[in-house]
């Protein structure tokens, strides 16, 4: 939750940045970027603090395997902060690719976005996690397989475009981590996705 929350927060800010890039000149942009990043990071710290507090005080089972979740969240926040030095226009890339119901075929509309990611990945040593997801309809393990299929489709496309296969990790969450709650097509269409996580 923490992780996806942060992801969403940054996403919104990235979209905001894209608009800024169109309007402002380079100098004011970079100031804005640092500002926004700072805000984002402070939100991250507050959330991480909240997460730490609530998990220690409400976990009554010492066996509980909760630490994995928190560390994932903080790791993704860290990598976003460290990508500061690279070109800003790359920062603004959308990182979610959407799919049709019960389909793992890349939609033509996602091609240009994936080409941009391929371009970026070819020129960097970043390791990327491709997280596949499904909407809530149908059975859970089938959706788990479907999510993997979707992430594999993105991976295969990137590899065809010259990205090093070993830098891409595929994980499916099936329908377990919806981006948007609600039992309607608007939520479903946002949940059938692959998230490209740098």
């Amino acid at each position: 939750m923490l992780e996806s929350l942060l992801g969403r927060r940054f996403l919104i800010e990235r979209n905001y940045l894209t608009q800024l890039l169109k309007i402002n000149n380079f100098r004011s942009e970079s100031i804005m970027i640092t500002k926004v990043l700072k805000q984002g990071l402070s939100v991250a710290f507050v959330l991480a603090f909240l997460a730490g507090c609530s998990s220690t005080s409400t976990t009554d089972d010492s066996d509980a395997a909760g630490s994995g979740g928190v560390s994932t969240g903080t790791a993704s926040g860290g990598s976003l902060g460290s990508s500061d030095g690279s070109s800003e226009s790359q920062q603004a890339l959308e990182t979610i690719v959407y799919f049709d119901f019960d389909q793992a075929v890349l939609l033509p509309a996602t091609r240009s976005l994936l080409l941009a990611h391929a371009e970026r990945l070819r020129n960097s040593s970043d390791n990327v996690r491709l997280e596949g997801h499904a909407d809530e309809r149908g059975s859970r393990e089938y959706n788990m397989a479907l999510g993997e299929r979707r992430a594999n489709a993105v991976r295969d496309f990137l590899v065809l475009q010259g990205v090093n296969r070993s830098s891409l990790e595929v994980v499916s969450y099936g329908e377990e981590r919806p981006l948007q709650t609600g039992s309607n097509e608007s939520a479903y269409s946002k949940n059938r996705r692959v998230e490209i996580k740098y």
Partner: protein
Amino acid sequence: MRFLSVLVLFFLAQLASAQLTIEITKGVDNPTRIAVVPIGWSGSRPLDEDISKIVAANLERSGQFAPVPRSNMLSFPSSEADVFYRDWRVMGTEYLLIGNIEQRDGRYYAVYELFDVLGQRKLISGGRVDGSAEQLRDIAHHISDKVYESITGIRGAFSTQIVYVEAFQNAGRPDNYRLMLADADGARPRILLESEQPLLSPAWSPDGRSVAYVSFETTRPAVFIQNLATGQREQLTDFSGLNGAPAFSPDGQKLALVLSKDGNPEIYSLDLRSRELTRLTNHYAIDTEPSWNADGSGIVFTSNRGGKPQIYQVTLATGRVERLTFDGEYNARGRVSRDGRTLVMVHQRNGVFHIAAQDLKTGDLRILTETNLDESPTIAPNGAMLLYATRFGGKGILAAVSLDAGTRYRLPSKQGDVREPAWSPFFN
């Protein structure tokens, strides 16, 4: 910090009311009228559990019984000498359950008798069960099982348990997933495992001693097995890609599961002793959701090899694969009843996801549920009811339906999303 402690208090208060409560939505047309007389008890203070109330609720939930309200009873007999058939017959009561419970050295001893009011004869004479103070509910479930079997001829499953997953996904807080264990009626919920990463697909071992499940605690899916008595757990798989959908063979020696380590989701069988892995399917489509058939000779599974998800069966001796479902565009997560006659599944019709049952001999398919977004059917060990997950009031809940669709009830949760039920086997 004060804000935080308020949050924590709120959370703890919610925990106290975590129990699932039953709402019966449909029963059979002419349920059998049974009077469950309050059990005789001469202790100085009331028992911690109302045993007769639990028995009556169990029987009512089966859909086949209509318990007589206590306020309508003319007398509360606790021994045969006080039973006057006429008193019960005038109220239209068909069966009468009486009993008595005593405490000796901290242990409770119950005696119960069941009468056929119309036939004026005793069906259960001097039934006995005993247990500790913590087992009063178990005593009630045991009596319910005996009464149910005596009248219907079907073994009662009130003493069984369920495991399920409860998920809390709230903005501003890390996700919280809990693997829960409870009585079949939703009472006495206990946390088996808690994680900030997804938990799913719990499955019982046939001896009822352990559960296997999928946990993302390593940030990737892995199959674990956990002993219920000791809490000891072991990670069984750590392959790249999918590690999911564990299902024990009827003899408990093997675990069917899904792995995509070779690039594609396939069904495997893991020998739990030798840890030898055997691949059972080989197809470029999705193969998942294995479940053993009744005698363990084959495995049913979901595959989209025909373009859409349908249920197939692989015969282990020959490796031959046959398609089982043809009705509808989406049939998935099949489970075969213990008598091998019925396949239950998630079935989509007109865009709505129901639970359906297919007669494996005739091929006839019947939709059992009237809800939407239904998934994860799990059949009671006596084959009378099945539990499934659905959505109600914007939340994930468990619901039950009899295999003849005559009876339905819900087990709504007051807090998180409840899902992924798995009904235990009989424990003895």
